[in-house]
Protein backbone atom coordinates (compact mmCIF):
# COMPACT_ATOMS: atom_id res chain seq x y z
CA UNK A 1 0.00 0.00 0.00
CA UNK A 2 1.37 3.39 -0.96
CA UNK A 3 1.47 6.16 1.58
CA UNK A 4 -1.34 8.55 0.62
CA UNK A 5 -0.84 12.27 0.46
CA UNK A 6 -2.85 14.22 3.07
CA UNK A 7 -4.18 17.33 1.30
CA UNK A 8 -5.25 20.10 3.67
CA UNK A 9 -7.13 23.38 3.37
CA UNK A 10 -5.48 26.77 3.82
CA UNK A 11 -7.74 29.82 3.79
CA UNK A 12 -5.10 32.14 5.24
CA UNK A 13 -1.29 32.13 5.61
CA UNK A 14 -1.74 31.31 9.27
CA UNK A 15 -3.99 28.35 8.46
CA UNK A 16 -1.37 27.16 5.96
CA UNK A 17 1.40 27.31 8.58
CA UNK A 18 -0.90 25.44 10.96
CA UNK A 19 -1.56 22.73 8.36
CA UNK A 20 2.15 22.38 7.54
CA UNK A 21 3.04 22.11 11.22
CA UNK A 22 0.25 19.58 11.80
CA UNK A 23 1.70 17.24 9.20
CA UNK A 24 0.00 18.05 5.91
CA UNK A 25 1.70 16.50 2.87
CA UNK A 26 0.10 19.13 0.66
CA UNK A 27 -1.99 22.24 1.19
CA UNK A 28 -4.39 23.86 -1.24
CA UNK A 29 -5.22 27.55 -1.42
CA UNK A 30 -6.33 30.35 -3.71
CA UNK A 31 -5.85 34.02 -4.47
CA UNK A 32 -8.09 36.78 -3.07
CA UNK A 33 -10.34 36.97 -6.13
CA UNK A 34 -12.85 35.16 -8.34
CA UNK A 35 -10.25 32.73 -9.69
CA UNK A 36 -10.99 30.18 -6.96
CA UNK A 37 -14.15 28.58 -5.68
CA UNK A 38 -13.83 29.89 -2.12
CA UNK A 39 -13.80 33.59 -2.94
CA UNK A 40 -15.06 34.60 0.50
CA UNK A 41 -14.51 37.97 2.21
CA UNK A 42 -11.31 38.19 4.23
CA UNK A 43 -10.10 34.81 3.01
CA UNK A 44 -7.27 33.68 0.75
CA UNK A 45 -3.87 34.96 -0.30
CA UNK A 46 -2.33 38.06 -1.80
CA UNK A 47 0.63 37.48 -4.13
CA UNK A 48 3.25 38.40 -1.47
CA UNK A 49 1.44 36.23 1.10
CA UNK A 50 1.53 33.27 -1.26
CA UNK A 51 5.23 33.81 -1.97
CA UNK A 52 6.08 33.69 1.73
CA UNK A 53 3.71 30.82 2.41
CA UNK A 54 5.04 28.64 -0.41
CA UNK A 55 8.58 29.16 0.86
CA UNK A 56 7.53 28.08 4.34
CA UNK A 57 5.55 25.08 3.06
CA UNK A 58 8.42 23.91 0.87
CA UNK A 59 10.84 24.28 3.77
CA UNK A 60 8.58 21.85 5.63
CA UNK A 61 8.49 19.53 2.59
CA UNK A 62 4.81 20.29 2.02
CA UNK A 63 3.46 20.78 -1.49
CA UNK A 64 1.28 23.76 -2.38
CA UNK A 65 -1.63 23.24 -4.78
CA UNK A 66 -3.14 26.43 -6.17
CA UNK A 67 -6.89 26.33 -6.85
CA UNK A 68 -7.71 28.23 -10.04
CA UNK A 69 -10.92 26.30 -10.25
CA UNK A 70 -13.70 28.65 -11.29
CA UNK A 71 -15.00 29.34 -14.78
CA UNK A 72 -13.85 32.69 -16.19
CA UNK A 73 -16.72 34.52 -17.86
CA UNK A 74 -16.10 35.67 -21.42
CA UNK A 75 -14.15 38.91 -21.54
CA UNK A 76 -12.49 38.39 -18.15
CA UNK A 77 -10.19 35.47 -18.84
CA UNK A 78 -7.03 37.51 -18.21
CA UNK A 79 -7.52 37.50 -14.45
CA UNK A 80 -7.28 33.68 -14.51
CA UNK A 81 -4.21 33.72 -16.74
CA UNK A 82 -2.52 36.18 -14.38
CA UNK A 83 -3.33 33.94 -11.41
CA UNK A 84 -1.79 31.00 -13.24
CA UNK A 85 1.32 32.94 -14.28
CA UNK A 86 1.83 34.25 -10.73
CA UNK A 87 1.39 30.76 -9.32
CA UNK A 88 3.96 29.43 -11.76
CA UNK A 89 6.41 32.22 -10.92
CA UNK A 90 6.01 31.61 -7.19
CA UNK A 91 6.59 27.91 -7.72
CA UNK A 92 3.37 26.16 -6.72
CA UNK A 93 3.49 22.39 -7.17
CA UNK A 94 0.20 22.01 -9.04
CA UNK A 95 -2.81 23.89 -10.35
CA UNK A 96 -6.31 22.69 -9.55
CA UNK A 97 -8.53 23.62 -12.51
CA UNK A 98 -12.06 23.11 -13.77
CA UNK A 99 -12.41 25.24 -16.91
CA UNK A 100 -11.29 23.80 -20.24
CA UNK A 101 -9.85 27.14 -21.39
CA UNK A 102 -7.80 27.54 -18.19
CA UNK A 103 -6.58 23.94 -18.41
CA UNK A 104 -5.53 24.50 -22.01
CA UNK A 105 -3.66 27.69 -21.05
CA UNK A 106 -1.68 25.92 -18.33
CA UNK A 107 -1.02 22.89 -20.53
CA UNK A 108 0.40 25.12 -23.27
CA UNK A 109 2.23 27.72 -21.18
CA UNK A 110 3.33 25.88 -18.06
CA UNK A 111 3.59 22.23 -19.11
CA UNK A 112 6.14 21.56 -16.39
CA UNK A 113 3.61 22.18 -13.62
CA UNK A 114 1.19 19.43 -12.65
CA UNK A 115 -2.50 19.81 -13.47
CA UNK A 116 -5.15 18.50 -11.10
CA UNK A 117 -8.75 18.35 -12.24
CA UNK A 118 -10.97 20.10 -9.68
CA UNK A 119 -14.14 18.57 -8.33
CA UNK A 120 -15.74 21.65 -9.92
CA UNK A 121 -15.16 20.03 -13.33
CA UNK A 122 -17.75 17.42 -12.28
CA UNK A 123 -15.88 14.60 -14.01
CA UNK A 124 -17.60 11.53 -12.59
CA UNK A 125 -16.92 8.85 -15.19
CA UNK A 126 -13.74 7.24 -16.51
CA UNK A 127 -14.55 8.68 -19.94
CA UNK A 128 -14.86 12.26 -18.68
CA UNK A 129 -11.60 11.94 -16.76
CA UNK A 130 -9.82 10.29 -19.69
CA UNK A 131 -10.90 13.20 -21.86
CA UNK A 132 -9.13 15.69 -19.58
CA UNK A 133 -6.07 13.45 -19.31
CA UNK A 134 -5.87 13.07 -23.08
CA UNK A 135 -6.34 16.75 -23.82
CA UNK A 136 -4.39 18.43 -21.03
CA UNK A 137 -2.17 15.77 -19.49
CA UNK A 138 -4.07 15.95 -16.18
CA UNK A 139 -2.12 14.11 -13.47
CA UNK A 140 -4.79 13.83 -10.81
CA UNK A 141 -8.57 14.03 -10.54
CA UNK A 142 -10.47 15.17 -7.46
CA UNK A 143 -13.51 12.90 -7.44
CA UNK A 144 -16.98 14.16 -6.58
CA UNK A 145 -18.32 12.92 -3.24
CA UNK A 146 -20.87 10.62 -4.88
CA UNK A 147 -18.96 7.38 -5.50
CA UNK A 148 -18.81 4.27 -3.32
CA UNK A 149 -15.44 2.76 -2.40
CA UNK A 150 -15.86 -0.13 -4.91
CA UNK A 151 -16.72 2.44 -7.60
CA UNK A 152 -13.56 4.36 -6.74
CA UNK A 153 -11.60 1.12 -7.05
CA UNK A 154 -13.06 0.50 -10.53
CA UNK A 155 -12.30 4.07 -11.46
CA UNK A 156 -8.67 3.68 -10.38
CA UNK A 157 -8.39 0.68 -12.69
CA UNK A 158 -9.77 2.56 -15.68
CA UNK A 159 -8.11 5.97 -15.61
CA UNK A 160 -4.51 6.94 -16.33
CA UNK A 161 -4.18 9.49 -13.49
CA UNK A 162 -4.08 9.69 -9.70
CA UNK A 163 -7.22 9.93 -7.57
CA UNK A 164 -7.87 12.42 -4.78
CA UNK A 165 -11.00 11.96 -2.65
CA UNK A 166 -12.58 14.02 0.08
CA UNK A 167 -12.41 12.39 3.51
CA UNK A 168 -13.71 15.10 5.83
CA UNK A 169 -15.81 18.24 5.73
CA UNK A 170 -18.72 19.61 3.82
CA UNK A 171 -20.96 16.89 2.45
CA UNK A 172 -22.48 18.17 -0.76
CA UNK A 173 -24.64 16.20 -3.13
CA UNK A 174 -25.23 18.99 -5.61
CA UNK A 175 -22.90 18.39 -8.55
CA UNK A 176 -20.13 20.90 -8.03
CA UNK A 177 -19.45 23.22 -10.92
CA UNK A 178 -23.06 22.87 -12.05
CA UNK A 179 -24.95 24.93 -9.48
CA UNK A 180 -26.31 28.42 -10.04
CA UNK A 181 -28.65 28.52 -7.04
CA UNK A 182 -26.64 31.32 -5.43
CA UNK A 183 -26.70 33.37 -8.62
CA UNK A 184 -30.46 32.93 -8.91
CA UNK A 185 -30.91 34.58 -5.52
CA UNK A 186 -27.96 36.98 -5.18
CA UNK A 187 -26.69 37.82 -8.67
CA UNK A 188 -23.25 36.39 -7.84
CA UNK A 189 -22.28 33.14 -9.50
CA UNK A 190 -20.62 30.15 -7.86
CA UNK A 191 -19.03 29.17 -11.16
CA UNK A 192 -17.93 32.61 -12.35
CA UNK A 193 -17.40 34.53 -9.08
CA UNK A 194 -16.38 31.68 -6.79
CA UNK A 195 -19.00 32.49 -4.17
CA UNK A 196 -21.61 30.33 -2.50
CA UNK A 197 -24.19 32.09 -0.33
CA UNK A 198 -22.17 35.31 -0.10
CA UNK A 199 -22.09 36.61 3.46
CA UNK A 200 -23.21 40.05 2.28
CA UNK A 201 -26.59 38.52 1.36
CA UNK A 202 -26.94 36.35 4.47
CA UNK A 203 -28.97 37.57 7.39
CA UNK A 204 -29.61 35.90 10.73
CA UNK A 205 -32.70 37.03 12.55
CA UNK A 206 -33.16 35.90 16.13
CA UNK A 207 -36.51 36.22 17.85
CA UNK A 208 -37.15 36.58 21.57
CA UNK A 209 -37.79 32.86 21.98
CA UNK A 210 -34.30 32.10 20.64
CA UNK A 211 -35.44 30.86 17.22
CA UNK A 212 -33.13 31.86 14.41
CA UNK A 213 -34.26 32.58 10.87
CA UNK A 214 -31.67 32.43 8.10
CA UNK A 215 -32.29 34.52 5.02
CA UNK A 216 -30.42 34.65 1.75
CA UNK A 217 -31.39 37.78 -0.14
CA UNK A 218 -35.13 38.11 0.28
CA UNK A 219 -35.74 34.38 0.75
CA UNK A 220 -35.95 32.46 4.03
CA UNK A 221 -33.83 29.36 3.71
CA UNK A 222 -34.24 27.97 7.21
CA UNK A 223 -35.53 28.58 10.70
CA UNK A 224 -33.92 26.87 13.67
CA UNK A 225 -35.74 26.52 16.95
CA UNK A 226 -33.56 27.45 19.90
CA UNK A 227 -32.42 23.90 20.70
CA UNK A 228 -31.58 22.79 17.14
CA UNK A 229 -28.10 22.60 15.69
CA UNK A 230 -27.49 24.85 12.71
CA UNK A 231 -25.87 24.41 9.31
CA UNK A 232 -24.32 26.64 6.68
CA UNK A 233 -26.63 29.31 5.25
CA UNK A 234 -26.63 27.72 1.80
CA UNK A 235 -29.74 27.03 -0.25
CA UNK A 236 -28.97 23.31 -0.46
CA UNK A 237 -28.89 23.01 3.34
CA UNK A 238 -32.20 24.77 3.94
CA UNK A 239 -35.70 23.58 4.84
CA UNK A 240 -38.65 24.13 2.56
CA UNK A 241 -42.29 23.28 1.96
CA UNK A 242 -43.79 21.20 -0.82
CA UNK A 243 -47.30 19.72 -1.12
CA UNK A 244 -45.93 16.15 -1.27
CA UNK A 245 -44.25 16.45 2.13
CA UNK A 246 -45.72 17.04 5.55
CA UNK A 247 -44.22 20.23 6.96
CA UNK A 248 -40.87 21.89 6.35
CA UNK A 249 -38.09 19.45 5.50
CA UNK A 250 -34.51 19.39 4.29
CA UNK A 251 -35.46 19.14 0.62
CA UNK A 252 -31.87 18.68 -0.57
CA UNK A 253 -29.69 17.54 2.30
CA UNK A 254 -29.38 17.83 6.04
CA UNK A 255 -26.60 19.86 7.61
CA UNK A 256 -24.09 17.07 8.05
CA UNK A 257 -20.37 16.56 7.48
CA UNK A 258 -18.45 13.84 5.78
CA UNK A 259 -16.11 11.82 8.01
CA UNK A 260 -14.44 8.83 6.40
CA UNK A 261 -11.97 8.00 9.15
CA UNK A 262 -13.10 4.37 9.40
CA UNK A 263 -13.02 3.93 5.63
CA UNK A 264 -9.43 5.15 5.27
CA UNK A 265 -7.88 1.67 4.92
CA UNK A 266 -10.45 0.77 2.24
CA UNK A 267 -9.81 4.00 0.34
CA UNK A 268 -6.08 3.47 0.47
CA UNK A 269 -6.48 -0.13 -0.73
CA UNK A 270 -8.74 1.10 -3.54
CA UNK A 271 -5.82 3.02 -4.99
CA UNK A 272 -6.54 6.54 -3.80
CA UNK A 273 -3.38 8.67 -4.01
CA UNK A 274 -4.51 11.68 -2.02
CA UNK A 275 -6.94 12.27 0.84
CA UNK A 276 -8.53 15.70 0.90
CA UNK A 277 -9.84 17.61 3.89
CA UNK A 278 -12.44 20.22 2.96
CA UNK A 279 -12.65 23.62 4.64
CA UNK A 280 -10.65 26.57 3.34
CA UNK A 281 -13.36 28.76 4.88
CA UNK A 282 -12.74 27.23 8.33
CA UNK A 283 -10.48 28.50 11.11
CA UNK A 284 -6.96 27.40 11.92
CA UNK A 285 -8.40 25.70 15.04
CA UNK A 286 -10.32 23.44 12.66
CA UNK A 287 -7.26 22.90 10.47
CA UNK A 288 -5.16 22.00 13.48
CA UNK A 289 -7.62 19.45 14.94
CA UNK A 290 -8.60 17.79 11.70
CA UNK A 291 -5.15 17.65 10.10
CA UNK A 292 -3.49 16.33 13.27
CA UNK A 293 -6.18 13.68 13.71
CA UNK A 294 -5.89 12.46 10.14
CA UNK A 295 -2.09 12.64 10.19
CA UNK A 296 -2.14 10.22 13.13
CA UNK A 297 -4.73 7.98 11.51
CA UNK A 298 -2.85 7.65 8.21
CA UNK A 299 0.47 7.03 9.96
CA UNK A 300 -1.14 4.42 12.15
CA UNK A 301 -2.61 2.58 9.16
CA UNK A 302 0.73 2.68 7.37
CA UNK A 303 2.29 1.14 10.48
CA UNK A 304 -0.28 -1.66 10.34
CA UNK A 305 -2.56 -0.26 13.03
CA UNK A 306 -6.14 0.88 13.17
CA UNK A 307 -7.24 4.43 12.36
CA UNK A 308 -8.61 6.02 15.46
CA UNK A 309 -10.27 9.34 15.16
CA UNK A 310 -12.53 10.76 17.76
CA UNK A 311 -13.38 14.22 18.89
CA UNK A 312 -14.02 15.71 15.46
CA UNK A 313 -17.79 15.64 15.79
CA UNK A 314 -17.88 19.09 17.34
CA UNK A 315 -16.40 20.50 14.16
CA UNK A 316 -19.04 19.02 11.88
CA UNK A 317 -21.93 20.86 10.36
CA UNK A 318 -25.16 20.33 12.27
CA UNK A 319 -22.90 18.41 14.69
CA UNK A 320 -23.61 15.31 12.64
CA UNK A 321 -21.37 13.16 10.48
CA UNK A 322 -21.85 10.60 7.74
CA UNK A 323 -19.91 8.31 5.44
CA UNK A 324 -22.23 9.61 2.75
CA UNK A 325 -22.07 8.06 -0.66
CA UNK A 326 -18.80 6.26 0.04
CA UNK A 327 -20.57 3.47 1.98
CA UNK A 328 -23.68 2.78 -0.09
CA UNK A 329 -26.11 4.20 -2.63
CA UNK A 330 -29.12 4.42 -0.32
CA UNK A 331 -28.73 8.18 0.08
CA UNK A 332 -29.79 8.82 -3.51
Amino acid at each position, binding site marked *: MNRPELVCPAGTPSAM*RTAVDAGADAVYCGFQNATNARNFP*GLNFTIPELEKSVAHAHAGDTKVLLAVNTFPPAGKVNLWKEAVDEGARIGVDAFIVADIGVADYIHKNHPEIRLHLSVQAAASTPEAIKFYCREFNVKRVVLPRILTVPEIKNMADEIPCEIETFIFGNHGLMVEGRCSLTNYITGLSTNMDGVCSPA*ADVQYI*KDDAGNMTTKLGEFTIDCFSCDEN*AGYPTICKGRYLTPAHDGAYYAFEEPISLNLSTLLPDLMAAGVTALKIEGRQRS*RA*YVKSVVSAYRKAVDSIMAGGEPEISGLLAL*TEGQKETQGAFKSKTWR
Partner: protein
Amino acid sequence: MSNLAEFKAAIGQDMTHTNPTPEISASSPHLARWMPPAPLFMLQPILRRIVKRVARENPDMFGRLGPHYKANFVIDPMNLPFVLLLRPDPDNLFLRAYRRRDLPDHDAKISGKFLDLLMLVDGDVDGDALFFARELTITGNTEAVVCLRNALDDVDGSIASDVANMFGPVGRTTLSALRRAKQRQTSN
Protein backbone atom coordinates in the same frame (compact mmCIF):
# COMPACT_ATOMS: atom_id res chain seq x y z
CA MET B 1 -3.77 50.05 40.02
CA SER B 2 -1.97 46.73 40.18
CA ASN B 3 -1.41 44.51 37.18
CA LEU B 4 -3.67 41.93 38.75
CA ALA B 5 -6.62 44.24 39.09
CA GLU B 6 -6.15 45.50 35.56
CA PHE B 7 -6.08 42.06 34.09
CA LYS B 8 -9.06 40.89 36.09
CA ALA B 9 -10.89 43.91 34.85
CA ALA B 10 -9.83 43.18 31.30
CA ILE B 11 -11.24 39.71 31.33
CA GLY B 12 -14.17 40.60 33.52
CA GLN B 13 -13.19 38.31 36.34
CA ASP B 14 -12.54 39.03 39.97
CA MET B 15 -10.04 36.41 41.12
CA THR B 16 -10.68 36.95 44.78
CA HIS B 17 -14.09 35.36 44.48
CA THR B 18 -13.21 32.73 41.92
CA ASN B 19 -14.64 29.32 42.29
CA PRO B 20 -12.00 26.70 41.43
CA THR B 21 -14.20 25.57 38.51
CA PRO B 22 -15.80 28.75 37.31
CA GLU B 23 -19.25 28.39 35.84
CA ILE B 24 -19.62 30.21 32.57
CA SER B 25 -23.22 29.59 31.69
CA ALA B 26 -25.44 32.64 31.54
CA SER B 27 -27.91 30.92 33.82
CA SER B 28 -25.23 30.16 36.36
CA PRO B 29 -25.97 30.98 39.99
CA HIS B 30 -22.33 32.03 40.18
CA LEU B 31 -22.88 34.75 37.63
CA ALA B 32 -22.21 37.37 40.26
CA ARG B 33 -18.64 36.11 40.54
CA TRP B 34 -18.07 37.13 36.93
CA MET B 35 -19.04 40.74 37.41
CA PRO B 36 -16.35 43.16 36.44
CA PRO B 37 -15.45 45.77 38.94
CA ALA B 38 -17.73 48.71 38.56
CA PRO B 39 -17.59 51.37 37.33
CA LEU B 40 -16.90 50.60 33.66
CA PHE B 41 -14.68 53.62 33.20
CA MET B 42 -11.92 51.68 34.90
CA LEU B 43 -12.06 49.21 32.05
CA GLN B 44 -11.77 51.72 29.20
CA PRO B 45 -8.02 52.55 29.37
CA ILE B 46 -7.20 48.85 29.57
CA LEU B 47 -9.28 48.09 26.52
CA ARG B 48 -7.53 50.89 24.67
CA ARG B 49 -4.15 49.44 25.56
CA ILE B 50 -5.22 45.96 24.45
CA VAL B 51 -6.50 47.02 21.08
CA LYS B 52 -3.47 49.20 20.37
CA ARG B 53 -1.13 46.40 21.30
CA VAL B 54 -2.89 43.84 19.11
CA ALA B 55 -2.91 46.25 16.18
CA ARG B 56 0.76 47.09 16.61
CA GLU B 57 1.77 43.43 16.70
CA ASN B 58 -0.40 42.40 13.75
CA PRO B 59 -0.51 45.22 11.19
CA ASP B 60 -1.32 42.79 8.35
CA MET B 61 -4.66 41.71 9.75
CA PHE B 62 -6.42 44.90 8.65
CA GLY B 63 -6.14 43.98 4.96
CA ARG B 64 -8.60 41.13 5.48
CA LEU B 65 -11.29 43.48 6.74
CA GLY B 66 -11.77 44.89 3.26
CA PRO B 67 -14.29 47.72 3.35
CA HIS B 68 -15.45 46.76 6.84
CA TYR B 69 -12.64 48.35 8.85
CA LYS B 70 -14.99 51.23 9.63
CA ALA B 71 -17.78 48.92 10.79
CA ASN B 72 -18.95 49.03 14.40
CA PHE B 73 -18.99 45.55 15.95
CA VAL B 74 -20.73 44.84 19.21
CA ILE B 75 -19.12 41.90 20.95
CA ASP B 76 -21.56 40.57 23.44
CA PRO B 77 -20.27 38.17 26.09
CA MET B 78 -23.73 37.09 27.12
CA ASN B 79 -22.79 36.01 30.64
CA LEU B 80 -21.20 39.36 31.47
CA PRO B 81 -23.07 42.54 32.27
CA PHE B 82 -21.41 44.62 29.60
CA VAL B 83 -20.76 44.54 25.86
CA LEU B 84 -17.77 45.75 23.86
CA LEU B 85 -17.90 48.04 20.87
CA LEU B 86 -15.06 47.49 18.42
CA ARG B 87 -14.17 49.58 15.38
CA PRO B 88 -11.07 48.01 13.81
CA ASP B 89 -10.04 51.12 11.88
CA PRO B 90 -6.22 51.13 11.93
CA ASP B 91 -6.18 54.94 11.91
CA ASN B 92 -8.77 55.28 14.61
CA LEU B 93 -8.95 52.13 16.69
CA PHE B 94 -11.84 51.90 19.07
CA LEU B 95 -12.66 49.36 21.78
CA ARG B 96 -14.91 50.37 24.61
CA ALA B 97 -17.22 48.72 27.12
CA TYR B 98 -20.89 49.65 27.43
CA ARG B 99 -23.61 48.62 29.82
CA ARG B 100 -25.94 46.28 27.99
CA ARG B 101 -28.86 48.64 28.50
CA ASP B 102 -26.88 51.38 26.73
CA LEU B 103 -26.22 49.24 23.64
CA PRO B 104 -24.55 51.57 21.13
CA ASP B 105 -25.41 51.80 17.42
CA HIS B 106 -23.66 49.05 15.52
CA ASP B 107 -23.38 47.28 12.16
CA ALA B 108 -23.05 43.78 13.50
CA LYS B 109 -23.33 41.95 16.79
CA ILE B 110 -21.53 38.79 17.82
CA SER B 111 -22.93 37.09 20.90
CA GLY B 112 -21.61 34.11 22.82
CA LYS B 113 -20.24 33.03 26.14
CA PHE B 114 -17.21 35.00 27.26
CA LEU B 115 -14.80 32.08 27.22
CA ASP B 116 -16.00 30.96 23.77
CA LEU B 117 -15.45 34.46 22.43
CA LEU B 118 -12.01 34.61 24.02
CA MET B 119 -11.03 31.30 22.44
CA LEU B 120 -12.49 32.40 19.13
CA VAL B 121 -10.37 35.55 19.10
CA ASP B 122 -7.46 33.33 19.93
CA GLY B 123 -7.95 30.79 17.15
CA ASP B 124 -8.44 28.07 19.77
CA VAL B 125 -11.95 27.22 18.72
CA ASP B 126 -13.62 27.06 15.31
CA GLY B 127 -16.26 29.74 14.80
CA ASP B 128 -18.30 27.61 12.41
CA ALA B 129 -18.40 24.82 14.98
CA LEU B 130 -19.68 27.25 17.64
CA PHE B 131 -22.22 28.50 15.15
CA PHE B 132 -23.42 24.99 14.27
CA ALA B 133 -23.86 24.29 17.99
CA ARG B 134 -25.82 27.54 18.36
CA GLU B 135 -23.24 28.80 20.86
CA LEU B 136 -22.53 31.81 18.68
CA THR B 137 -25.10 34.22 17.31
CA ILE B 138 -24.49 36.75 14.60
CA THR B 139 -26.84 39.56 13.68
CA GLY B 140 -26.45 42.53 11.37
CA ASN B 141 -23.84 42.68 8.62
CA THR B 142 -22.80 39.05 8.19
CA GLU B 143 -20.05 39.86 5.71
CA ALA B 144 -18.38 42.26 8.14
CA VAL B 145 -18.37 39.55 10.80
CA VAL B 146 -16.90 36.98 8.41
CA CYS B 147 -14.13 39.45 7.52
CA LEU B 148 -13.36 40.15 11.18
CA ARG B 149 -13.31 36.44 11.93
CA ASN B 150 -10.92 35.77 9.04
CA ALA B 151 -8.71 38.71 9.98
CA LEU B 152 -8.38 37.53 13.59
CA ASP B 153 -7.90 33.95 12.49
CA ASP B 154 -4.89 34.92 10.39
CA VAL B 155 -3.11 36.31 13.47
CA ASP B 156 -0.45 33.78 14.40
CA GLY B 157 0.01 32.94 18.03
CA SER B 158 -2.38 33.97 20.72
CA ILE B 159 -3.95 37.36 21.14
CA ALA B 160 -5.09 36.36 24.61
CA SER B 161 -1.51 35.42 25.53
CA ASP B 162 -0.28 38.74 24.19
CA VAL B 163 -2.82 40.49 26.36
CA ALA B 164 -2.02 38.31 29.35
CA ASN B 165 1.66 39.11 28.87
CA MET B 166 0.84 42.77 29.18
CA PHE B 167 -0.06 41.99 32.78
CA GLY B 168 2.99 39.87 33.57
CA PRO B 169 2.96 36.55 35.45
CA VAL B 170 -0.39 37.31 37.04
CA GLY B 171 -1.97 37.73 33.63
CA ARG B 172 -0.51 34.48 32.39
CA THR B 173 -1.69 32.59 35.49
CA THR B 174 -5.17 33.94 35.14
CA LEU B 175 -5.34 33.05 31.46
CA SER B 176 -4.25 29.48 32.07
CA ALA B 177 -6.85 29.19 34.83
CA LEU B 178 -9.47 30.33 32.34
CA ARG B 179 -8.25 27.86 29.74
CA ARG B 180 -8.32 25.01 32.22
CA ALA B 181 -11.84 25.97 33.17
CA LYS B 182 -12.83 25.90 29.50
CA GLN B 183 -11.19 22.54 29.00
CA ARG B 184 -13.02 21.08 31.96
CA GLN B 185 -16.25 22.46 30.61
CA THR B 186 -15.62 21.00 27.14
CA SER B 187 -14.68 17.56 28.40
CA ASN B 188 -17.69 17.36 30.74
